[in-house]
Structure formats: C-alpha cells, structure tokens
C-alpha cells in the first residue's frame, strides 16, 4: 500500500515538475509569471487528443504533433504578445499574460466545447504490471522515467551547450548579453519553445493518467506547478523538479491516509506556497533574485 502510493506520488509529481520547469525557465530569463503556461499544457493535451481521436495518428506521432504544436504556440505567444513589451513596466507584461491565458481557455471553449472528452489511451499504457503484491499501471512507471530523461536533456542543454550558456547569461544580465552580440530576443523565444514542449509532454501524461481533456484543465495544474516552482526555488530547474515532486507526493499521500481531506487536495499547493514565502522566500534550492542574480 505504501509503495503503491509512493509510485503514484512520484508519477503525479513528475507531471507537476515538467510543467514547473517551463515556469522557472521563463521566470529566469524574463522575470515573468507566464500565466498562459498551464494553458499551453492544455493545448498539448488537446493536440494529442486530436492526433489520436480525429486524425487517427499512431500514439507517438500524436505526441510529436502535440510537442511541436505547443512549442510553436509558446514561441508565437512570446513573439506576438510579450516581445513588444520588453521595455514596458512589468505589470503590463503580467496583464498581457493573463489575457493570453484567458484567450486560449475561451477560444478552445468556444470552438471545441467545454465538455470534458474521453482520451483514448493506447492499450500498452493501460496494462497493469504486478510486482509481489504491487499493482502498477505502465503509465505510472513511464512518466517518472521519461521525466528523468527529459530533465537530463534540459540540464545538458543548459550547462553544456552554447545556447544553454546564453540562457544562463540572460538570467544574469540582459543588457550585457546583448552587448556580447547575442540576440537576446531569439534566446528568449527558444526558452519559450523549450518550456512549452515540456508542458506539452506534461499535458500528454496528464490526459493519459486522467483520461479526459477539457479547455479549463490547465488552470489549476498550472497554478500548482507554479507553486511547485516557487517551493523548489524559482529560477532553478532542479528546484522546479524538487518542488513538483514534493507537491505531488503530498497530494497523493495525504489523500491516501486522510481520505476525508479529499475535497481540500487542491489547496495543499497554496499552503506550501504561503509557508515557503513566510519562511524561505527564495525556495528550497532557490537563488536570491533580489540580492544577486544567480
């Protein structure tokens, strides 16, 4: 029973972690809470749904469609909505992000309907494995493994490639990066693309585990993932993963042992958020953005 819940918590936490990485990277380079990030995850889930249910693509092709589509959408949102506001007061940027978020939710609501639709999960992922009394769905095993692989790729890009160096430099000082002859806008767009692609993977995992898609599904998940990013330490990719796992575990474990608290499960992430702001505002692995940037 305990192991079972650990695995479920790990799986849920990995999904939060994937989405939290996008928040933390965008915050790192732009100091922007990208409210639309949760909705990009929703678009990822929807694209996967269309790939499988409408276009009748093989599952992996649908996943690819979701990743590419979401990455393009994330980059487009930066190009159209955020880039013109680089020198504007930050509040304008936040308001625009809220506008983009609300636009995506309602556009999908109008054109595809607000009713949750069942996601056709491929049968391979629905198999259940048994290990000495433990029953584990294949999807709950695959999610953490793939998350770890993606995390390794992201860390490799950030710390071993020139693009990664540019991204880290951008988090440090935008003006100097421009002086060094690096096109900061291009790097920021790439960050949006990477974050959105990860959000799309998170969205696909989400619709496979809770097999339905609806236009509002990104709101709460996005908020919790942001809370995860803050708990882990905003600006730090490892922190985002740590925060995601903490919040995922808490939700699963508390409900397993105190079922009467089930109705309040969505509140846990915010309680964590408030506590971390009270006692260690920089987060567990965080960098103090106010004193020194990185």
């Amino acid at each position: 029973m305990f192991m079972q819940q650990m695995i479920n918590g790990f799986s849920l936490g990995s999904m939060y972690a994937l989405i939290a990485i996008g928040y933390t990277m965008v915050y790192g380079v732009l100091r922007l809470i990208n409210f639309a990030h949760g909705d990009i995850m929703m678009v990822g889930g929807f694209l996967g749904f269309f790939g499988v249910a409408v276009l009748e693509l093989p599952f992996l092709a649908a996943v690819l469609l979701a990743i590419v589509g979401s990455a393009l959408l994330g980059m487009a949102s930066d190009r159209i909505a955020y880039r013109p506001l680089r020198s504007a007061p930050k509040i304008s940027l936040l308001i625009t992000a809220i506008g983009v978020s609300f636009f995506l939710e309602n556009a999908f609501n109008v054109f595809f309907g607000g009713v949750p639709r069942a996601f056709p999960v491929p049968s391979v992922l629905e198999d259940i494995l048994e290990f000495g009394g433990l029953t584990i769905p294949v999807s709950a095993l695959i999610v953490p493994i793939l998350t770890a692989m993606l995390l390794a790729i992201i860390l490799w890009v950030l710390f071993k490639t020139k693009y990664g160096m540019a991204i880290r430099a951008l988090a440090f000082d935008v003006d100097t990066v421009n002086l060094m002859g690096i096109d900061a806008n291009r790097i920021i767009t790439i960050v949006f693309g990477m974050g959105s692609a990860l959000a799309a993977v998170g969205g696909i995992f989400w619709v496979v585990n809770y097999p339905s898609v609806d236009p509002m599904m990104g709101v709460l998940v996005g908020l919790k993932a942001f809370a995860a990013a803050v708990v882990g330490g905003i600006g730090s990719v490892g922190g985002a993963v740590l925060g995601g796992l903490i919040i995922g575990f808490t939700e699963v474990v508390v409900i397993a042992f105190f079922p009467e608290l089930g109705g309040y499960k969505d509140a846990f992430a915010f309680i964590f958020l408030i506590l971390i702001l009270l006692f260690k505002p920089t987060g567990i692995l965080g960098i103090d953005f106010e004193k020194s940037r990185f």
Partner: protein
Amino acid sequence: MTVKKDQWINLSFVFGVIGFIGIANSFFDEYTIRILNNIAIFTILAVSYNLINGVTGQFSLEPNGFVAIGAYVTALLLVSPEAKQYQYAIVDPYPFVLSLHANFVVALVLSGFFATCLALVLSFPVFRVRGDYLAIVTLGFGFIIKIFAINYPEVTNGSLGLNDIPEFSNLYWTGGIAIIAVITVLNIVNSKFGRAMKAVRDDEDAAIAMGVNTFKAKTFAFCTSAFFEGVGGGLLAALLTSISPDLFDFFFTFQLLIIIVLGGLGSTTGAIVGTILVMGGSEWMRFLDEPMKFFGYTTPAMPGLRMVVFSLILIFIMLFAREGIMGKKELKDLFKGRKRSAK
C-alpha cells in the same frame, strides 16, 4: 484657487450622480435599473481594485475571493432562520449558522471587516517578498475560497449556495456606497499614504531610500481594497438574492481587470469610465454569443465568444494603448487645459 475649482468639479459630479439615481429610480424600467445597479457595484469594486493594482502598482488578482467572502457573510446574516432551515439540503448546518441574523448595514460592515482581516493575514507572507508573488497567491486564494465554499456545507450549503437572500440592494444603496467608495479612495490617493503608494509603484528602491515604509503602504492599499470588495460582495448578494460558489470564479476578476486597464491603470476616474463601458459593452455584446447571420448564412450559437473578444481587447490595449482611456489623469485634470499635464 485650483483646489477650490477641483472641489467644485467633484461636488457637481456627485450631485449629478445623485440626481441621476433619483430620476433613474422613478422613470427607468427594471432591466435598465438592474444594469445601473451592476454598474454601481462594479464601480465600487473597480475603484478599490485600482487602488492596489493601478495606484500601488502591485499586480493582484484577488477581487473574486474577497467578493465571495463578502457575499457569503452578508447572505448568512440576512437570510432568515426559517429560510435557512429548509435550505441546507446536503448536511445539517451548525446551530450557530441558524441563529446568525443582522440588519443590512451591520451585514455590509461585517462583510468588509472579514475581507479586510483575510487581506491582512495574506499580506504578511506576500509583501515580505518583492516581486509578483502577490498575483499568484491571490489567484490561488480565490481558488481556496471556492474550495472551502464547496467543501464546508455546514456553513455555506456547498455547491447549492444560499438562496432567498432578501433583496435589500437598490440604486440608493449601491449608488450611495459607490459614491462613498470613490470619495474615500480619492482621499486616500491624495493623502500622504497615497503618495507613498505611488512612490512604491514608480520606483520601489527610491521609495525605500526616501524612508517610505513600503510594506505598510502596500498592506494599507491591499486591505482598503479588500474592505470595499467585501462590501461590494455583500451588495451583490443582496441584489442577486442567491449566490453559489461558481459565481465567484476567475472571470469575475478578469472583468475587473479589463475595466481598470481600459480606463487607465491608476486613474480613479478611469476606473469609473471603464466600468460603464465594460458593463454596458458586455450587455451590448450579448449578440456575439447567439447565432448570427452573415449574408444569409447563419453561424451556430457560440456561448463564450464574448470572453474571447474580451481577452483580445485586453491584449490589444496592453500592446497598443497601454495608458487606457484616462492614463493616470483624473476628472479635474480634464478641465485644466493644456498648461499642466498631470502625472
């Protein structure tokens, strides 16, 4: 000399509004009066929301949470014990819930009071850190309030909400409190506290260097706006006569955000102008949600299209007309001529 002129402008505006309320109440039809009531309540909300978002420059997404608190407090105090007896269908309410009863004024004041207390509790974790955590914490707060409203049926009657709230709100109440809210907020903005708030908005570091207690300024702005949002929530409950958790979702806050952005962040006059335009426009744009005819071709009904248009409007204002209609100007600045542009 100018001060006196400003006062005359504001005073004549107030009397104009009072006269208009008197005329509206006796001559206009029910539908128009309902819209006017809505405009008055949203004026209260927008003007106070503008205090934290526009004047102090702290991006917050709290109105739906505080309005919900106010609405529930007022509803619990106004619904008669007999009416409560048969409403609680999910579980039996706590005995004290049944015995709660107060008159309208006490209910409104308590609504504001509870909202203010919660704002005070929230401001300690949030304003200790600089940056945009306020936005995410207040957004989460709205969700938590809704979660509690649903999961605490002993008090709130869960997702069924509370019904049979006596309809106390009329144009005199809503309009009167709107005038009080506007005057209070204007006085705050023009006071020492108001200057501290603007200093925080324009340059927080400089404000700290000048000895402004930024924590105090932000908390004061946040609590004041929470108070009026609580009162506005109470008025709304007594206008709608029934409330449920779904009423106070994020769309509520979004509407207010559009109002203050359209009117011009930081301008109280702008908040009022924005309220009238958005509330009126939202009635006018109802046609968008219904089936439309283009050259003989009928499009299907698309409920929610209005909201798509709203969000596009918000993005466009931010990209191309960031100052909104009024910028940071107030009513009196419009009569000043070109000599001095207000900042």
